[in-house]
């Protein structure tokens, strides 16, 4: 475009510009505290409305009282002074949504923090939205493959489910979530990882790891760092699920990880106490249950009339010294459709992922498991249960009968099979084949220490010699012919090893 054209264009715009009188509704700051402010005036202010402080700092009206409005400040509250003028914006807190957020690292307000430029989306979704109702939902029917043998076999997760990951610090909670995200590659699933109150270094490491595994092509990361105001930690999960809802409304499947909700509850407690809401148990406000229930209720499996999209939620809760009876863990356990329980003892015994199968459950995922997996995992669960029962008792007995010995050996091998290193998710058909072989006793004469290596060799062998069989299992086929073929493959392998 030439200079003249630019000038013409500008002239056109300027002449088309309408002079208007702006009507603004304002109030005055009467008190500022850590991340909150009290404001006089603003008589028509709505709940959850965005308010603008001088210098472009935004706030959200949380408490509407007789004379004042209690505001949560999103940003640098140290620059706000008593007497400052606060403007209403008439907008409810909302975040940008759309395809453009994929592959980006954003803050809780949807602003980019990865230095890759603006996120130019057309659409904005409000952060707080009412969850889909009964009539727009359908039962969970499709699986989410996490790529972790122990979970896919024994604690299966379905699309639209809410499965809690709970455990002490340093037990591999985030590792499970990240493995699940990495495993979604090519499975037509968008992923959103919400880091709440995490160390920035940890987030940076995760982003690098996801990029390395090609997972950033379908993943959005939302970060409310440890040094950001509590308001950001409070909003971040809602911002994340709003972005997820955009994709679900388009009929796509989304996996969202909240890491972790304990810190969100802490942030909400801080804000509530500063706003002088009465504290309850563990000093949390009375509506801390609603804080999590309204968030997790937004995970859904929509029926065909509503586009058929789904949001699967993996909330994470950190316990203190394995205490699941604390306030927040019990709340979230009761909201979710099951929990994956991680234990420090198991972690240091070398069983990683450190899943405690006994108390981990999935209340709805069984319906979503593929047929082959359902068939082979049933027996595995039983073998493990029997093993756990005998394990304690066997420590004292010197000579055991043959049957008990066999059960113990089988159990030990199943435990060994369930071990899996980080960042190495497995395809469902590989899992089925490996579990089938162990379950049918083909690995019984392999020493426990050689199990991992043998499993790898076996899978390589099957991949080379029985490609079509694996394809059938992947499609969810399971009949006597397949079982016979699998048995034959196992026998062939036993012969050559």
């Amino acid at each position, binding site marked *: 475009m030439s200079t003249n054209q630019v000038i013409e264009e*500008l002239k056109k*715009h300027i002449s088309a510009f309408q*002079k*208007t*009188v*702006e*009507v*603004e509704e304002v109030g005055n700051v009467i008190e500022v505290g850590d991340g909150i402010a009290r404001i006089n*005036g603003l*008589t028509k202010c709505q709940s959850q409305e965005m308010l603008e402080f001088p210098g472009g700092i935004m706030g959200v009206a949380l408490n509407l009282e007789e004379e004042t409005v209690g505001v949560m400040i999103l940003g640098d509250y140290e620059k706000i002074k008593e007497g400052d003028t606060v403007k209403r914006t008439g907008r409810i807190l909302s975040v940008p949504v759309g395809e453009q957020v994929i592959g980006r690292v954003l803050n809780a307000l949807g602003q980019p923090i990865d230095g890759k430029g603006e996120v130019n989306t057309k659409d904005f979704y409000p952060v707080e939205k009412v969850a889909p109702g009964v009539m727009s939902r359908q039962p969970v029917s499709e699986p989410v493959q996490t790529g972790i043998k122990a979970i896919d076999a024994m604690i299966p997760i379905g699309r639209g489910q809410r499965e809690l990951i709970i455990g002490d610090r340093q037990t591999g909670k985030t590792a499970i979530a990240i493995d699940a995200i990495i495993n979604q590659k090519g499975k037509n699933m968008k992923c959103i990882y919400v880091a709440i109150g995490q160390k920035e270094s940890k987030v940076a490491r995760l982003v690098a790891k996801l990029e390395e595994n090609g997972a950033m092509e379908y993943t959005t990361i939302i970060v409310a760092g440890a040094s950001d105001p509590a308001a950001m930690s409070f909003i971040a999960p809602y911002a994340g699920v709003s972005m997820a809802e955009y994709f679900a409304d388009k009929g796509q499947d989304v996996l969202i990880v909240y890491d972790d909700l304990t810190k969100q509850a802490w942030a909400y407690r801080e804000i509530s106490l500063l706003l002088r809401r009465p504290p309850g148990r563990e000093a949390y406000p009375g509506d801390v249950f609603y804080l999590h229930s309204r968030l997790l209720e937004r995970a859904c499996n929509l029926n065909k009339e509503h586009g058929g999209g789904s949001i699967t939620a993996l909330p994470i809760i950190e316990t203190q010294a394995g205490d699941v009876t604390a306030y927040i863990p019990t709340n979230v356990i009761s909201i979710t459709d099951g929990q994956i329980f991680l234990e420090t003892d198991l972690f240091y015994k070398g069983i990683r992922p450190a899943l405690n199968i006994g108390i981990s459950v999935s209340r709805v995922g069984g319906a979503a498991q593929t047929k082959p997996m359902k068939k082979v995992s049933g027996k595995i669960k039983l073998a493990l249960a029997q093993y756990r029962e005998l394990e304690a008792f066997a420590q004292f007995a010197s000579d055991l009968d043959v049957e008990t010995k066999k059960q113990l050996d089988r159990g030990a091998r199943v435990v060994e099979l369930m071990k899996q290193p980080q960042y190495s998710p497995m395809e469902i058909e590989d899992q089925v084949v490996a579990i089938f072989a162990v379950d049918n006793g083909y690995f019984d004469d392999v020493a426990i220490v050689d199990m991992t290596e043998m499993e790898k060799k076996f899978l390589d062998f099957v991949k080379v010699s029985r490609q079509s069989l694996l394809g059938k299992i992947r499609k969810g086929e399971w009949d006597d012919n397949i079982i016979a073929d699998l048995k034959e493959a196992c026998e062939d392998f036993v012969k050559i090893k």
Partner: protein
Amino acid sequence: MKISNRQFAEALYELTIGLVEKDLDTTLEAFVKFLSKNRRLKQGNNIIVEFEKIAKKKQGIIEIEITSARKLDKDIVEKIKESFAKQVEAVEKIDESLIGGVRVKLEDRILDASVRMQLINLKKSLTT
């Protein structure tokens, strides 16, 4: 329970409205005694401020604040006052950053017809 300044002022207005001078004195005395008994004398000044607001509102007087870039003519100020209501008390302020035009503050609303705001709007319309 803490009683707010406004509540005190409203009560005082209700009590004193339509009283003749003699009764007014006794009522006021009783009110001040009540304040002192409840250790609320410190709130006195703020109650007076609130009382003024309430009294003006009841009498239909509107308070506005006119901000402009330069000192305005008497006529213009009168015209602005007239356009709001019959009885208007105006406070004038000078703020050069407005560049031109006026900004009128009415309770907790601001009517902004300043050149600065027009320029900001123009910038918005050009950038989007």
